[in-house]
């Protein structure tokens, strides 16, 4: 059924976007960038996957859970890939520019990033907005763009290409930890609530004639929403935990922190000198 022709949207604009990314990347960074190219290609392919594959097609009015997968790709995974693909030295040069530096520094503060990332999740699941974005292509496009931008803002304090914009590891961990709580709450709500979070998915217009097979596969609207809620919750938190682990590793291996001059001959140093 996955290979059913109707479930693939081969003419999606996502191809264009992905190609533009890759082309721009190659033009701008040329040789500096072999390293990051892998992340970029991954990001671009996920972009295609999110719109061309059944994920994108079913997200378009059929399945809330498919929408959720698309949402997570756009908000979390793709921006992360994009940020990680940026070559460090080149970026360090760019951000010496005072204007860019100011922007970079502003985004490095945890509050805006957090609000963008978690806020985008909450905002676009207000029933009215969620339905509107599904039924109206313009609003849908706006939403997808806002996901990508919010995602970039969210990951900036963690994965900014220039070290000085990144949060110190322990702050980064609290940042992700609290973000996890944010999406957990929303996930719990969507999973267990009895109201329909996104009415557009409750009675899909069956333009592709796949509805019966979906229902036969057990994906009725109630189950679908439950699945969506769990997707909102477990995969992002797992991703955050993964990043938290990598931050912890960095924290433990980071041996070049500034050392205060330690007084020589430490043994028997009277305790009282250390107080005050």
């Amino acid at each position, binding site marked *: 059924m996955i290979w059913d022709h109707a479930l693939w949207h081969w003419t999606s604009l996502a191809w264009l976007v992905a190609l533009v990314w890759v082309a721009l990347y190659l033009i701008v960074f040329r040789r500096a960038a072999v390293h990051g190219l892998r992340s970029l290609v991954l990001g671009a392919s996920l972009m295609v996957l999110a719109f061309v594959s059944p994920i994108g097609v079913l997200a378009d009015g059929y399945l809330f859970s498919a929408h959720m997968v698309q949402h997570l790709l756009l908000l979390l995974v793709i921006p992360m890939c994009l940020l990680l693909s940026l070559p460090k030295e080149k970026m360090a040069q760019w951000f010496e520019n005072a204007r860019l530096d100011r922007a970079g520094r502003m985004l490095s503060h945890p509050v805006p990033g957090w609000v963008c990332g978690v806020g985008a999740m909450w905002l676009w699941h207000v029933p009215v907005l969620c339905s509107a974005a599904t039924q109206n292509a313009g609003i849908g496009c706006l939403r997808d763009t806002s996901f990508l931008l919010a995602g970039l803002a969210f990951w900036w304090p963690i994965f900014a290409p220039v070290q000085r914009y990144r949060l110190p590891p322990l702050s980064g961990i609290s940042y992700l930890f609290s973000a996890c709580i944010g999406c957990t709450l929303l996930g719990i709500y969507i999973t267990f609530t009895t109201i329909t979070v996104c009415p557009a998915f409750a009675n899909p217009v069956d333009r592709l004639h796949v509805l019966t097979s979906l229902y036969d596969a057990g994906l009725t609207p109630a189950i679908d929403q439950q699945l969506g809620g769990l997707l909102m919750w477990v995969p992002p938190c797992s991703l955050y935990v993964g990043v938290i682990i990598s931050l912890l590793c960095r924290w433990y291996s980071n041996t070049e922190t500034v050392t205060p001059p330690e007084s020589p001959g430490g*043994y028997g140093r009277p305790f009282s000198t250390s*107080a005050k």
Partner: protein
Amino acid sequence: MSTEVVQQYETAKADSNWGLLSWFASVDHKRIGLLYMLLAVFFLVIGGVEALLIRVQLAVPNNTFLSPQFFNQLFTMHGTTMVFLVGMPVFTGFANYLIPLMIGAKDVAFPRLNAMSFWMLPFGAVLLYWSFLTGSAPDAGWFSYAPLSTKPYSSLPGVDYWIISLAVMGIGSVAGAINIAATVICCRAPGMSLQRVPLFVWIMLMQAILILITIPPLNSALAMLLIDRWLGAAFFEPARGGSALLWQHFFWMFGHPEVYVFALPAFAMVSEVIPVFSRKPIYGYAFVAGSSSVIVLLSYGVWAHHMFAVGLGMGANIFFAAATLLIAIPTGIKIFNWTATLWGGSIRCTTAMLFAIAFLVQFVVGGLTGIMFATVPIDWQLTDTYFVVAHFHYVLIGGIVFALFAATYYWFPKITGKMLDERLGKIQFWLWVIGFNGTFGVQHFLGFMGMPRRVYTYADHPGWATLNAISSVSAFFMAAGTLVLVWNVISSLLRGSTAGANPWDAFTLEWFTTSPPPVENFESLPEIKSRRPVWDANHPEQADWKTSTTPADNGHRPDKAKTSAWAFVVSEAIFFILLLVAYVVFNARVEDASGPTSETALNVLRTGIFSVFLLSSSVSFWLAERHLSRGDTTGFRKYLAMTILLGVVFLVGQAIEYNELIQDGVTINRNLFASTFFTVTGFHGLHVTGGLVALSIMLLMARKGYLTPKRSKVFGAIGVYWHFVDVVWIAVFTIIYLGFLQ
């Protein structure tokens, strides 16, 4: 840069007399730690006697030794006692005693708060056990499932005692956890970077954080149950529209992380004991520390595996099963770390080490049965049978109590200055290994045969009598082992050999000072350049820092008042989030439109206006703070008074609103909207009131000229709280008044 690390304003005064009374007034972390431990031992005995009574009743089929009611009271009190009066205090006790010593501090961050946290415990304990005198001890199980625990089914006051005592002890635990966290974060000796603290310290910091976020769900559930029982609401009464399932969700949101509140300290203890008796550093310090941190996060997302049988739906079951399997990974990794530490070490088989190794084996068994339960169909088959009892006792006793014994034999010399007798120790060890596995090993089979837990007797099915008899007889081996331990402690105290500062050639700072440590803890500290400063000092030629580097200390220590304010705020935030969740759950339903709702009963505009007052109080507070930091005391007092006034206006607005609602007959027992509304706004109002009291004290101090800019740190801490109260109100207002999420 500040190297002002071990600043303690309220350091314990040297109590010159060690008489019995001085213990009541003591704020020394070592004495309070010991008090915690002694209390835990006392209740271990009480809870143990309760368990023995249960086992005697179950020794033979169709027994009538205990009445069914008394049996129910016993298993409820046994569980509650072991969790809240043994597990919680004993680990807090060890943390209290050891952490300041391990990080080279003189005391915990807030010695007086520490004493208060402790004394909450005996108070709660007396409340809990008082219920026996009323003739109705709680009997709804340690998790007091609704609706059994609601008024129609439990009309006697037993459950009320249970609720109040748990709330009291919970508040004490949160205060204690804040203290531990602030101590680790703010009071480390110079050189002791957070990456260099002993694993015990790091893991106990994680445990403190876990306590902070896991007690609030319990407290909110307790508050709601109490409102049900005393004020006639119906949160948990399905017959009146409530949801008994909600109790289960809230309870296990506390209950599952709680098992890690116990497991983490056990990990912490064996992570100290195993390396020392293998004479090498722990294998993979960062792994053990990191996976313990990850557990804090993950343990919060798997509570529903206790609810597979209630019908959550297939999707939810599968996800929770997967998450549960996931959390086994960080735990599994640690088992490998400990085993790898043993591997190739020169192992000394002391009693402490034996207990630690038994911990490893038995904890793995408990973990494996846990993984079995994570597979939903197996859980359906085995839940509420003796297999569950076997599972969690393998984890709790086989794992955690054994780790505690290891810790006891390891640190007893430090605490008392005397060695425990190794021969008696080994006798105790074998009595416990045989007794424990005999008691609980056979319960796996009983579970498979379908013997239900929590039923006071059973018919004479084939095999049941024998297995139960084995189980009951074995329990007495553990009791005998405990008597051996008590004898060992007493005889060691009277005529044990003297320990000296570092009898085990151990690594961490507590072994650098005398045994027992002086009131001030240390006369001097060695230089801290690695994770094993005492090893470095004693074996300078093989010092750790020569071969492997660890991140150095940058000397930065956050302000402890602010740190503890943030910790408190996090805890409170979770409390409110859960109350709001309850609001959303009960008001998002379309079907029961009977009675008042938020649309019909509330005056949004008026409350909106009063909200502006509250929110502007945050601004005036901020202005006050700025004036204070500039040293302008008149300006400061002016804005502080304004903050208080604005807060009072808000409260007046709330009083008007309440009055009007009550006039209209919208009282807390009217319907679920009213109950949730009054609960959420009422608790918020209480918090505003609390904040106002604190601010008024500040104002008074400022009047009297006590409030120097130096003391303004405390003011900053109150500020964190005050802004928090406002943020909570924004959430309350958008959800309740503006109907977001409905």
